[in-house]
């Protein structure tokens, strides 16, 4: 009965102040919603260990991350096997590499595959399905016989590929299909959602010789492993560190390129984290931002509660004076918190679920063209997130219920009744108010600066001048089928193989150029705007003592007569020609930035340069034959991108894949058809995929960052709302508590403008302290992010000038409006304000 009365009274109190109640619920919902959302996002993407169908965690084993190219570096299976055998830290392990395989073609009986389709292929060791504990839905997985020399090529299809291209026909098992234009056999279909190790659409076997070499090799493969029972990642790494020392001390000179400067060759990483190493800092930054937003929300709730305590302190004092037990008052205040936090928590779950849905859509869009979304990047709110939410609600109930109760109940109720609120509040409350305003300024500054930096950097990167013409340009990737255009290194066929591969590319280029609506075409391993990554090079006679003190550049293979299709120009010297197709021809073209920086007298042509690697690795000397206009490879927001570029002729190197850029007239659809027709007319087994506009291509590397930027934008918007309302509420509350003081000042003759000036001066002090701390923290955090992304000066300018200005504006408004409303009171009313 008593509980029921208290509950009713609590409800009445909340309903009496609908604005306060709604606002508090909303802030609780935003705070908890962001907590659940971010927990689900980061747990799903990065932190939740991958177990699949096993007891122990699945980890990645690889060589040290390549920070120059921002890419994972694979290890020699020989060394990984050695470590696994000696240490016994893995239950089992396997290897994989990722690539593309074209399925279907002219011989296909499935209409969707009449034109060969490019699939993300995972070439793996035999135990991949056993290790993950997931067996095929139809057919079989791999068996040892699939991995021996001369075995029939087999393929296991993903559920999606089976559905999309094979009409979900179970009879495809054991049917033949063209794999890169060679006959192969479908042996299995995996269950829905399975695309381990990363984004596989099909699985093909890696030769046994590759995964179990008897001695060190030049091969590099990524490895997955399930940790042995009771072994932690830290213990596994400690074991690998010991093995690394052993390998470093015994490795032959040919292979010492594998040993990094700090000796940490083999590394074990949580599986999910390994795939996003280059973005790890950004996710951590996101975590920090959301944590700060939570703090912001908490401060806002605290402020509301403080205001509420100030408002109700007299009522509480009267109730205490009437003899109501403190325990009952506390329970009543807890009831109010239970209501606010439960409703807020429910809304939070809805907000978080909506956010997760939006994020899943965003990821799907970001990876729509290349299907390269890792399989665990489909987020959901799991039981762990619900547990976190429930605990957060309980914690919030206790904090938001007990805090005001404690504050109200510990006051001297006799003094409160006698003196009104003047005796109850005072300097301590005012100082808390000031500290809260400063905290709001600091937190909003940090969150908004980081969000602005990321968004602005993404925007400028997408609008950056990459030195190429992108209008009316289509791009696509071409891939030669390896069975038809083999790579036979260390044999007498090697040179002729390379020439054959180059020639087919040139025939395709000629066919494209001959199309009526095509002006020109270019072929390059990675087109400007993409293909980040750099290597050090030495200039003959000017080599630095240590290899990494030399300059570095991005390097691409290019077909001759490619410049004009990209809007580039040969400024000095010549383009590549037949002379560069000869075996052993070592010519190079550099861009203008390198020429200006290192050959300022215009004498670059004829000079020689060579690659420089660690442990004394040096390449052949290449002679500079030309200088071309500048382009920028990689996104301008990627720290591995380069403005120094050098180009090698593809003629005598014969790549297996090339990007093509086509300058067309007329409409894009006709140009796309012409491009595909031209390729098919030369060789229908040559794969062409990822056909898209040049502008879209440039945005591809930034898609993930732009997706994360959108999350930051959302956080930024939330932060602006919280900060604006919070700063206003804090300043307003802080000013309102001084109403009587203002009455006194006005009574003794203070002009209104002097009082306004006094408030503005005090606000300016808080603003300066808050901004100084906020900007300092922002610089530290953006510097942390700049390990991964290049923040352009404009973004720094916008963030570090624009955001403080915005906050200054908010503080001025937050000070001016409540001050003006107090000054509108007659001094006599202000003096008697309660």
């Amino acid at each position, binding site marked *: 009965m008593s509980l029921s009365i208290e509950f009713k009274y609590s409800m009445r109190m909340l309903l009496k102040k609908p604005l306060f109640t709604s606002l508090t619920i909303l802030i609780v919902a935003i705070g908890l919603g962001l907590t659940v959302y971010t927990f689900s996002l980061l747990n799903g993407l990065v932190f939740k260990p991958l177990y699949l169908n096993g007891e122990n965690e699945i980890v990645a084993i690889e060589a040290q991350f390549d920070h120059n190219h921002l890419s994972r570096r694979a290890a020699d299976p020989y060394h990984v096997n050695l470590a696994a055998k000696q240490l016994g830290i893995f239950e089992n392990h396997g290897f994989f590499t990722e690539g593309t395989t074209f399925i279907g073609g002219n011989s296909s009986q499935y209409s969707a595959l009449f034109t060969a389709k490019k699939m993300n292929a995972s070439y793996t060791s035999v135990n991949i399905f056993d290790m993950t504990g997931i067996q095929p839905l139809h057919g079989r997985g791999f068996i040892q016989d699939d991995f021996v020399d001369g075995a029939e090529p087999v393929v296991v299809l993903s559920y999606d590929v089976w559905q999309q291209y094979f009409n979900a026909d179970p009879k495809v098992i054991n049917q033949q299909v063209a794999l890169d234009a060679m006959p192969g056999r479908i042996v299995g279909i995996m269950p829905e959602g399975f695309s381990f190790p990363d984004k596989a659409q099909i699985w093909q076997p890696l030769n046994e010789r590759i995964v179990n070499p008897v001695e060190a090799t030049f091969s590099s493969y990524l490895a997955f492993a399930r940790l042995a029972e009771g072994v932690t990642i830290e213990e596994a790494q400690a074991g690998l560190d010991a093995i690394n020392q052993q390998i470093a001390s015994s490795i032959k000179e040919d292979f010492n390129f594998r040993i990094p400067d700090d000796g940490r060759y083999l590394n074990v990483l949580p599986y999910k984290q390994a795939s996003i190493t280059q973005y790890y800092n950004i996710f951590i930054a996101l975590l920090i931002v959301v944590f700060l937003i939570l703090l912001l929300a908490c401060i806002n709730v605290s402020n509301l509660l403080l205001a509420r305590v100030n408002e109700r302190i007299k009522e509480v004092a009267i109730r205490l004076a009437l003899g109501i037990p403190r325990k009952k008052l506390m329970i009543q205040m807890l009831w109010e918190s239970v209501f606010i936090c439960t409703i807020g928590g429910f809304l939070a779950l809805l907000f978080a679920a909506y956010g997760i849905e939006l994020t899943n859509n965003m990821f799907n869009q970001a990876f729509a063209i290349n299907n390269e979304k890792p399989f665990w990047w489909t987020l959901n709110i799991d039981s762990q997130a619900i547990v976190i939410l429930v605990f957060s609600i309980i914690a919030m109930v206790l904090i938001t219920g007990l805090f005001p109760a404690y504050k109200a109940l510990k006051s001297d109720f006799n003094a409160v009744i006698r003196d009104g609120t003047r005796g109850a509040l005072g*300097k301590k409350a005012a100082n808390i108010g000031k500290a809260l305003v400063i905290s709001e300024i600091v937190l909003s500054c940090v969150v908004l600066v980081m969000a602005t930096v990321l968004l602005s950097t993404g925007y400028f990167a997408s609008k950056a001048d990459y030195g190429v013409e992108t209008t009316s340009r289509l791009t696509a990737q071409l891939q030669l089928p390896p069975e038809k255009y083999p790579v036979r290194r260390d044999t007498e066929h090697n040179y002729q193989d390379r020439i054959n591969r180059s020639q087919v590319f040139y025939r395709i280029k000629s066919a494209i150029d001959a199309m009526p609506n095509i002006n020109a075409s270019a072929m390059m391993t990675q087109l400007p705007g993409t293909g980040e990554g750099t290597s050090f090079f030495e200039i003959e006679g000017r080599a630095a003592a240590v290899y990494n003190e030399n300059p570095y550049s991005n390097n691409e293979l290019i077909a001759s007569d490619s410049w004009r299709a990209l809007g580039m120009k040969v400024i000095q010297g010549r383009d590549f020609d037949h002379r560069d197709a000869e075996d052993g021809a070592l010519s190079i073209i550099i861009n203008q930035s390198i020429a200006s920086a290192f050959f300022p007298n215009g004498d670059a042509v004829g000079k020689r340069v060579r690659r420089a690697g660690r442990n004394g690795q040096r390449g052949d000397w290449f002679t500079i034959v030309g200088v071309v206009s500048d382009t920028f490879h990689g996104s301008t927001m990627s720290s591995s991108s380069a403005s120094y570029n050098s180009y090698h002729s593809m003629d005598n190197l014969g790549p297996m894949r090339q990007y093509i850029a086509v300058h067309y007239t007329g409409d894009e659809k006709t140009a796309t058809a012409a491009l595909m027709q031209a390729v098919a007319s030369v060789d229908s087994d040559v794969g062409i995929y990822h056909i898209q506009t040049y502008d879209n291509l440039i945005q591809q590397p930034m898609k993930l960052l732009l997706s994360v930027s959108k999350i930051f934008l959302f956080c930024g918007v939330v932060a602006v709302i919280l900060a604006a309302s919070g700063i206003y509420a804090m300043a307003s509350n802080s000013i309102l508590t001084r109403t009587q003081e203002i009455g006194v000042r006005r009574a*003794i*003759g*203070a*002009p209104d*403008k002097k009082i306004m000036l006094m408030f503005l001066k005090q606000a300016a002090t808080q603003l300066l302290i808050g901004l100084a701390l906020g900007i300092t923290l922002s610089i530290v955090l953006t510097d942390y992010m700049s390990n991964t992304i290049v923040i352009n000066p404009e973004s720094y300018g916008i963030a570090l000038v624009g955001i403080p200005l915005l906050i200054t504006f908010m503080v001025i408004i937050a000070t001016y409006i409540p001050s003006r409303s107090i*000054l509108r009171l007659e001094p*006599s*009313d202000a*003096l008697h304000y309660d």
Partner: protein
Amino acid sequence: MQNQDNTLVALNALDKIFYTDDVETHALEGINLTIRQGEFISIAGPSGCGKSTLLSILGLLDTPTNGNYQLSGHNVTSLDKDERALIRNEKIGFIFQAFNLISDLTVQENVELPLSYRSDISKRERQQLVADALKQVDMQHRANHFPSQLSGGQQQRVAVARAIAGKPAIILADEPTGNLDSKNAGAVMELLDKLHANGATICMVTHDPRSASRADRIIEIFDGKVVADRPSETPSAIAI
């Protein structure tokens, strides 16, 4: 400047009406009152009769709804906020029941506060005026203390110093002894007597008949109207 007949304050047919939702409350009705320079006036009456409202209007802390208010011969009824602030600062000194010292400021700073809003007084003059005022209330030894370090009586003496530091034309005191024990109340009243003896014009609202009796004249108010204006030695018209 003041009138030739020495009138400092002249209220003529003054009304004050408060509007709360649809309710009109007539706090003051047809008040006619004259205060001459050097007078010590006491305004008395039961709670809610309009004493404090009258004092607020006299102190330009509030504006009348109707009527006319002349201070030192100037019509101050419809001045703007800044003009009223200037007159409060230069011509009026306030003493409040709850002292109303600013807790973040020291005694010295509290007394100096009204002077700091005046541009015609140099810093040195200001400090001299503060020192003189504190000396008059015998609080110079506590100049660097904060209000919270003082007793109630001491705080009220500081408030008196603040009221007189700028040498105002009139001192308005709203229940100056209401929050004090009898000993401190007596001390504050002695201070006011001393100020009056030195020529200050004082208008005091009080419940306390003993305090009221110290005045030259007692104005009695009931339901917003002046019901008596009598010398202090004459018996009251109403039961207070």
